[in-house]
Every structure is written in structure tokens, then in C-alpha cells.
């Protein structure tokens, strides 16, 4: 069952001379884990802002086409109603945080949902724990390091456990173990609760193993929409300059030298398996 459907979405920011996204059409199924990637400036953040109604309700400008998210027509429904179904982690965490303490920031959305006190407490504790910032709960968000701020921004959305979670480069400030942990938590919500995930990410190395669907944008529109292996192995992805995982890159380079390894690996574990096969064959 599709949870997001866009038809010919075109949007121009106020004062913009050209559309920031053009003719975007896509279907995302409930429970999908989607990686949305493409060169800097291609329109990823703009598309994310459409999913939760920031566009067209907060950013004015001109939006054409159709968009339904979680059975709601985004163009007609107000932001507060979309917020019950769609959570967005901003690309720049500083723009998302405003409360006087970490704890208050994370509780804010839950209070708006009207959840009972003890449930709010429980969700806040859980989200702080998942993002590894329990000791920072009393601290002011603007007095934290970049990565700590980003953890707060993620905790805010995790706590809401929305039906659709949109994460715009959520780990750009995180240390690699922290990033891995966040991808695992999000992946678990995806698998266990069926949360639909849309993750904007350049470093496919880290995230690709959790995804079942990859969308690549270029020059403000969608140019590839497929399963991870198909996309990473495709010539067009490389031409656009999408950074394929290093494990896949090794596979491509070895293939150029005549070493056949079967299907393209998207992570080191898969590469190890394939290489072990070849090395063993070679040995016997």
C-alpha cells in the first residue's frame, strides 16, 4: 500500500528564478526504507520539506502537482496535522532546536500530541538513550557540540515515533559509531513497527544495508528509482557522480581486471563473502 504518492511535483521558492524540484513523481510503499541521494543542490531537502507540508505552508512560493502522504493531501492539510504522521529531522540541527533544555526539546512534540505525562517521560527517556545523550538532558541545546545537537534533533523525531520518518542527512555531524547506532535504531523501528523511512544520505557506505529502495535525484528531478544493488551497479549512477560504497567500488575495479565476483556487494560483509569464494576457488 503506497504511503507517499507524488505526481508531477514542481516547486519554486519565493524569489527563486528556477524550480528547486521539477516534475517529481514517486511512489513509496508503507514500510519502505528509502535512501534519497544525489548531488548537492539537486533538490533533496526541498522534496523532504514537501513531505511534511513545510512546503507549501511555511515556505510560500509556487507548488504544482499532487502529493499525498499518510493518506493526507499535503497541499490542503495544515502543518500541525501533517506533524502527527510525518517527522522530519532537519539537515541543520541548529534550526530545529529552540527549547531551553534538551529534555524540553524532545518532549515538545509529544506534549503537542497530547500524550499522558508518564508516557511522555517514557518516550523521552527512550529517545535520549537511543541517541546516547542521557547525560545531556538538562543542558541547553545551543551549548552543545555539533554532533550532540544533531543527536537531540534525531531524539525529537524518534520520540514521536511517527508513521513516516524523514531524515535529512541526519548523521552528517555524528561520529561513525554514533551514526551506525542511529541507522540501527531507525532500521529497527522500520522492521518492528513498520515505520516508513526516507533517509537523505551521501555516504551510502553506512546506510545502504538497511534500505530496500533507493531514489537518486539529479538536476532537481528523479533519475533513478530502484533496489539498492541495481542502482549501485548502474552506469548512470556513476555518471551522476553518486558515491557508491567502497566495497562496491572494489568490486567494480576488480571486475575491470577480469575478476568475476557475481552480484555487486553493497557492504564490507558481502564483499568478504564474495572474495572468500574467489580466494578459495583459486586455492583449490
Amino acid at each position, binding site marked *: 500500500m503506497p504511503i507517499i504518492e507524488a505526481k508531477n511535483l514542481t516547486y519554486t521558492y519565493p524569489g527563486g528564478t528556477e524550480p528547486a524540484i521539477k516534475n517529481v513523481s514517486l511512489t513509496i510503499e508503507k514500510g519502505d526504507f528509502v535512501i534519497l*541521494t544525489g548531488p548537492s*543542490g539537486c533538490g533533496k531537502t526541498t522534496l523532504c520539506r514537501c513531505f511534511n507540508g513545510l512546503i507549501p505552508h511555511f515556505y510560500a512560493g509556487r507548488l504544482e502537482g499532487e502529493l499525498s502522504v499518510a493518506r493526507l493531501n499535503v497541499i490542503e492539510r495544515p502543518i500541525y496535522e501533517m506533524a502527527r504522521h510525518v517527522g522530519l529531522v532537519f*539537515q*541543520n540541527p541548529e534550526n530545529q532546536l529552540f527549547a531551553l533544555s534538551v529534555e524540553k526539546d524532545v518532549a515538545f512534540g509529544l506534549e503537542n500530541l497530547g500524550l499522558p505525562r508518564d508516557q511522555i517521560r517514557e518516550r523521552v527517556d527512550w529517545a535520549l538513550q537511543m541517541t546516547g545523550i542521557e547525560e545531556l538532558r538538562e543542558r541547553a541545546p545551543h551549548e552543545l557540540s555539533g554532533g550532540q545537537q544533531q543527536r537531540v534533533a534525531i531524539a525529537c523525531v524518534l520520540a514521536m515515533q511517527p508513521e513516516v520518518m524523514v531524515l535529512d542527512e541526519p548523521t552528517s555531524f555524528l561520529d561513525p559509531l554514533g551514526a551506525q547506532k542511529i541507522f540501527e535504531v531507525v532500521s529497527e523501528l522500520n522492521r518492528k513497527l513498520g515505520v516508513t523511512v526516507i533517509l537523505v544520505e*551521501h555516504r551510502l557506505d553506512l546506510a545502504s544495508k538497511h534500505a530496500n529502495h533507493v531514489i537518486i535525484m539529479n538536476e532537481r528531478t528523479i533519475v533513478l528509482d530502484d533496489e539498492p544493488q541495481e542502482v549501485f551497479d548502474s552506469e548512470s549512477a556513476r555518471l551522476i557522480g553518486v558515491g557508491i560504497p567502497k566495497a562496491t567500488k572494489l568490486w567494480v575495479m576488480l571486475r575491470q581486471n577480469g575478476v568475476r565476483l557475481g552480484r555487486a556487494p553493497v557492504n564490507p560483509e558481502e*564483499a568478504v563473502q564474495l*572474495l572468500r569464494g*574467489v580466494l578459495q576457488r583459486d586455492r583449490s
Partner: protein
Amino acid sequence: MIEVKGVCFAYPTGVEALKEVSLEIRDGDFVAIMGSNGAGKTTLVKHFNGLLKPASGEVFVDGVSTRSVSTASLAREVGFVFQNPDHQLFCETVEEEVAYALKNFGFEEGIVKSRVTWALNLLGLTQYRQTSPFMLSGGERKRLALASVLAWDPQVVVLDEPTIGQDYEQKEKLRQFIVQLNAQGKTVVVVTHDVEFVADCGPRIVLMAEGKIVADGDAKEILTNKELTFKASIVPPQMTQIFVGLADFGLPTDVINVHEARRILLGFLKEEEKP
């Protein structure tokens, strides 16, 4: 070039961000500072151009203590790009943003013009000359922050998370440029979590944890050390992970980049074929 001697620093809130840190960065060094979130990396590098002054200890830039000079006078020599570009951008147009410091430092008009053109081209922003910095995408804003500092060609560049928000191609361009800068004798300091970027550059790595420096050595030595990487919340490069998984075939495990990986694997497969 930069000498940090027993520096302690605490924020007004009482957080002790640096505890007795000592470090020497020589003229022409290429250093990557890595470590967990909150380890004190940004706090440390803000001492390099006097943005922060030590509570105790001393920081010397080119032999002069940062206590005795203003940040403005250090700025020309030590170019600093903030982790978050929003802390740095304030002009009306992209072009003015890049020209601002150049004009301030008294470059003549012709040079300002040609440096602006050069920097915008390097960072792929030429099409946005007349655009407001606040109408750029996240990655574009970061590149503008980089452009506005690289434009005046400082002797030392300190880049806090330069690859944030950059796609593969931009990152590769930036990497080649940084390597070239360093080859020309400039001192380069990058703060980064981007392991693959570091593996491709192969600089000296300074590892921080909880306000202290816990290791200092070359990229290969540090990135393939399991205990150290874990301590600094680093996931080893993909190539290291792969070669650790193949260790029982007698292959080396200290491999960090993909070209090296290919060479070793091809060599190994050929050798096995011979007899």
C-alpha cells in the same frame, strides 16, 4: 607553526572541554583531528586562531602567543572554516561573501575579482554569484564558507568538518585541492568524522577523547588499530573491514584504501595461479 602547550579550557557552563592538551603542528603538516562527538575537537581548533583563549596553558602561532594578539590579526594567517556555515555567512550575495575578507585584507580590486572567480569555480558555485547565501542548499552553504576562506590563500587552513553535506564528486574535488595545497607547503588541519575521506588522504591523525589527545600517528597506523578506533567512536574504513575478514588467507590487515586493496588482491590471485 602551531604549538599547544598544556592547554585547559572550560565553557562558562562549567564543562571542561580541554584537559591539559599539548600538540605540535609543524609548518607544512597535514593533520586530521578525529574523535567522538563532544571530544573537544572544535574547542581545540578554535584555539588555533585565537577565537578561544586557553584558561591555562599557552597556544603559539608562528611563535607568538594567541593571548598577545587579536583574532583579527591572526585571521589572515590562519583561515578558519566553521563546522556550521551559518555561523560564518552574512553577506547579501554569494559573490560579496567571498569578496568580503579579500577586501578587508586590502587586496586590490583586480585581485579580489580574480580570486572570487577562482574560488567560486573551485567550489562549484559560479552559477550562484548573485544569489543570497540563505537561498543555497546545505551543501552549497558549506562550500561557500570554504570558498570565502580559501580565496585569500592563508598559510594555515583549519577546516572544521569540510566534507559535511558534500556529494562524492565535490568531496573528491575538495580532497584533491587540499592535498595540492599541502603539497605547496601550506599547513592543513581538518576536523572530520569522515573515515573514508581520511583513508583517501592519508594524513597524520590526532585522535581525541574526552578533552584529551589519546593518539597521534599516521593514518594507516591509527585507522587499523582496533582499540584506538573504538575509543574514538570510529568505524574502520571499509577496506580494513574487508581485509580483516580475509586475514586467514594470509593477506595483510592494515589496508585502508581501495587502490591498495585492488593491488594486493590482484597480486595474490596471480601468484596463486602460477603453479
